[in-house]
């Protein structure tokens, strides 16, 4: 990869990374949301791999491979398993915020991300830190998905988007946190998704569906 094309590839991968997050807000079908999330995992791995090749760091390329397996393979697989086999459940029917408003919110959040990351970019301007706003925008969109969707599984996807955004921030800003921390974080993330998968199964047996609207028993 030449030094001229490096920012181009990085921008392409970051564009795909942000676009898939917006796509999650746009789709109703839960299986489509999971496909978009897997695509985003691949985009994240691509970002890290491009950084690794540019910095001639074998370690980063290997980390990118690991990230790709986890975020584009294992986590989407677990999420799809949590979906179960009942097609009636597989749609987000009554989101708290409808799709048009969600897309507007995504645009507003992206602007906010640009404003909030100005000091981050200013500290060390480079092609990598230049796309930090996209990573932070994905964090904000993930958080928004978490609050604006009712299905248990959409919330899980929202949480995973949030986490993808944070991982991208870590690699873009600082070429990743120390390896021991990164390992711990990935392991924790895998366990959280496993726990949530078991809980969705139990919720489905207890409530008959995993629509969180049914979760209204605990209140003051």
């Amino acid at each position: 990869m030449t030094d001229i094309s490096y920012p181009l590839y990085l921008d392409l991968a970051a564009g795909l990374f942000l676009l898939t997050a917006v796509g999650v807000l746009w789709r109703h079908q839960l299986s489509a949301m999971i496909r978009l999330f897997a695509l985003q995992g691949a985009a994240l791995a691509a970002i890290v791999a491009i950084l690794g090749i540019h910095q001639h760091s074998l370690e980063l390329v290997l980390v990118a491979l690991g990230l790709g397996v986890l975020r584009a393979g294992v986590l989407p697989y677990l999420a799809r398993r949590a979906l179960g086999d009942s097609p009636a459940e597989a749609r987000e029917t009554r989101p708290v915020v409808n799709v048009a408003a969600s897309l507007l919110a995504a645009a507003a959040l992206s602007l906010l991300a640009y404003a909030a990351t100005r000091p981050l970019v200013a500290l060390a301007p480079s092609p990598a830190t230049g796309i930090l706003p996209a990573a932070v925008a994905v964090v904000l969109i993930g958080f928004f998905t978490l609050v604006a969707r009712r299905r248990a599984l959409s919330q899980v996807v929202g949480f995973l988007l949030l986490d993808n955004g944070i991982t991208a921030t870590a690699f873009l800003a600082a070429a990743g946190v120390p390896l021991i921390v990164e390992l711990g974080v990935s392991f924790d993330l895998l366990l959280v998704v496993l726990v949530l998968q078991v809980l969705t199964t139990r919720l489905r047996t207890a409530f008959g569906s995993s629509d969180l609207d049914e979760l209204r028993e605990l209140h003051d």
Partner: protein
Amino acid sequence: MTILLLLAPVGLPLAAALVYAAAGWRPHTTAWMGVVTTALLSADAIGLAVTVTRHGPVDTAGGLIRADALSAWMLLGVAAVALLACWASPAYLAAEHPHARRARWYGILLHLFIAAMAVAVLAGNLGILWVAVEATTIVTAFLVGHHRSRTALEAAWKYVVICSAAIAIAFLGLVLLYYAAQHAGLTGNDALDWATLAGHAHQLDPAVTRIAVGLAVLGFGAKAGLVPLHAWLPDAHSQAPAPVSALMSGVLLPVALYAVLRVKAVADPALGAGYLRTLLLILALTTLALAAVQLIGQRDFKRMLAYSSMEHMGLIALAAAVGTRPAIAALLLHMAGHGLAKTVAFLSAGHILYRHNSSRITDVRALATRTPLLAGLFGLAIVALLGFPPAALFASELGIARAGVGAGLAWATAAAFAFVATAFAAITAHSGRMLLGPPPMTEPGAAPPAAFTPATAMPLIAGLLGVAVLGITLGPVAGLLQAAASTVGAP
């Protein structure tokens, strides 16, 4: 020797978890295993406290595991509450008759939970601290959902989703702190090592550090029950089994605040004391206000205890905002006193819940005449939580108020204690209704539950004695408390 003292707090609970995984939960044998390991953990914590007081901070594994006076103080708290919770667990599970499989998981997860908290307070690296705090969410998720009822599953779901998202925000904060540290010339593990970071704090880029610290405090604050991401707390604490509620309220919330204190030790030299003081004051006062309002209309006694935890965490956040040495000393004493008193309160509430099969305040009447011993312990725990002498909370609340006024935050302190007074009145009224009054005319028709024996009461009595002793004299731990306060407190 020091290495052993530093590694045993993690090794002992892991060993106990392995025993439960291999042998299951047997009422007369392995059920008491946890008491043995947590008693050893307490001995280890005392040994570590002595070492740290005499020789200063110690570390191992290249600085990944480190203990200073503050870590030793936190570990003492974790060990004491873990001992009480494990001591009370056999009676709790015996009353509940769970499946063998569920009891086994209870044993495994409870000890993994204790191990994760030990790692959190002994981590020398903010990244490891973060991983340990997140691990507590994972292992306690199934403990919260232990009863498998609809309400327990709902609480577990909210708990995992809200806490994981909040703690992810804290991680974003740590990532940005690492970014700032790299540009201040630190590399690798050093860039997240709290001691190194605090030493190089003045070189960190202020604009990036401001964002980083804000995110980290909001994230860890959510895990400590501070607004705005507090909604999981009353649900999780009221649905978990009593010994787990005791651990979650008594030590997990303080461990999350310990993370805030470590971040504060980096933030204050980098940004000046004003930034975090403002942020923490806002969080403290809104948490206190919310807890006071929710306590007034409360109808469930376990939720009442949960909101009382939020109230105490609000006070602790206020003390952290004040940030002077006397304030931090009062804060640490408050953590210890609240941990012990809240443990007794949750454990006795668990027995009350089991006897009445309901956690509604209106379903519990005249406890004092029907089960005097249980009523006395619950009442004394509430009295201690309300801050009456000789409980340690009296001394610590007085200390927080004096430090607040002394640091020029008289208005904020006055507002905070107005909310505390509101909570005081609400808790007194609710508990009075449960303890006193005429016995109900129609006794429940079901077979009367097993008597509340003095043997069952032993851990509760021990906890209350601990609160009272801490309130009367600090004795040998006074030096440790002062040393711990001076590690993060401004002079």
